[in-house]
């Protein structure tokens, strides 16, 4: 199964963050690769959304929807800058 990209979770991200997120700039905590959220590798359909660095596969973001709550883990990111 090929990974998708951040466009595939645009709706989920917008719901979780309350704003358009595919243009947000993210930086990998492991290799430093920096770019728009739209370009990350995304693994869907599993128990949760898994976002990995396209260069080094480092885990960047995990989103788990449990009933009405979304649990979002961003610890793999060195930084996340949301477009103003």
């Amino acid at each position, binding site marked *: *199964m090929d990974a998708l990209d951040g466009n595939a979770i645009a709706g989920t991200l917008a719901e979780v963050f309350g704003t358009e997120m595919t243009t947000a700039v993210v930086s990998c905590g492991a290799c430093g690769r920096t770019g728009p959220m739209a370009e990350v590798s995304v*693994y869907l*359909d*599993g*128990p*949760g959304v898994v976002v990995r660095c396209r260069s080094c*596969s480092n*885990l960047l973001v995990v989103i*788990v929807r*449990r009933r009405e709550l979304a649990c979002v883990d961003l610890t793999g990111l060195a930084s996340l800058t949301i477009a103003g």
Partner: protein
Amino acid sequence: MAITRGFHGRRVDADPARVPPGQYVTEGFPVLSAGPTQHTHTDAWTFTIRGEVDEPLTWTWPQFQALPHETVTVDIHCVTKWSKLGTAWTGVALDTLLDGVQTSADYVLAFSDGGYTTNLPLQDLRDGQAWVAYEYDGEALEPEHGGPARLLVPHLYFWKSAKWVRGLELRAHDEPGFWERYGYHNYGDPWKEQRYDGD
């Protein structure tokens, strides 16, 4: 929740006694993943039991293939709500791998290529409840379904059946694995619908 007229999905009917609460039976075999498909050649593959043991035990692929193995048909249940009944797997029983292993550990952290982990009580790997499976439906297990070998623990939600498994760490203390850290249930009994932490 608005019902979509005429939509049925791809589910099939099944004996309700075999379907845990909240699950839907499928005939397909969805591929779910938390990362890129791992491609480990059997030349490089080993399986290791380490941790609370006197000495780590390791098997190479040929050694593993030489162990007693069996074919079992089991129902599997994914926390994403699909269940697949009557799946046939061939592999080595954990009872065989743990035979003679002296340990005081009560817990296990299974680890896989690509960094995936999942935790279980050691007891849940014994007594005919678990296998390291390398064939599905009579064919070599494909990488996208966890090949060369995956853990198979059908009495728990299928995220506990770690794909691309490379070994077990026996532990005195429980350590949550990948999905368990992100809010999934530490044990994961589908019959008690233990999907999330706190269920």
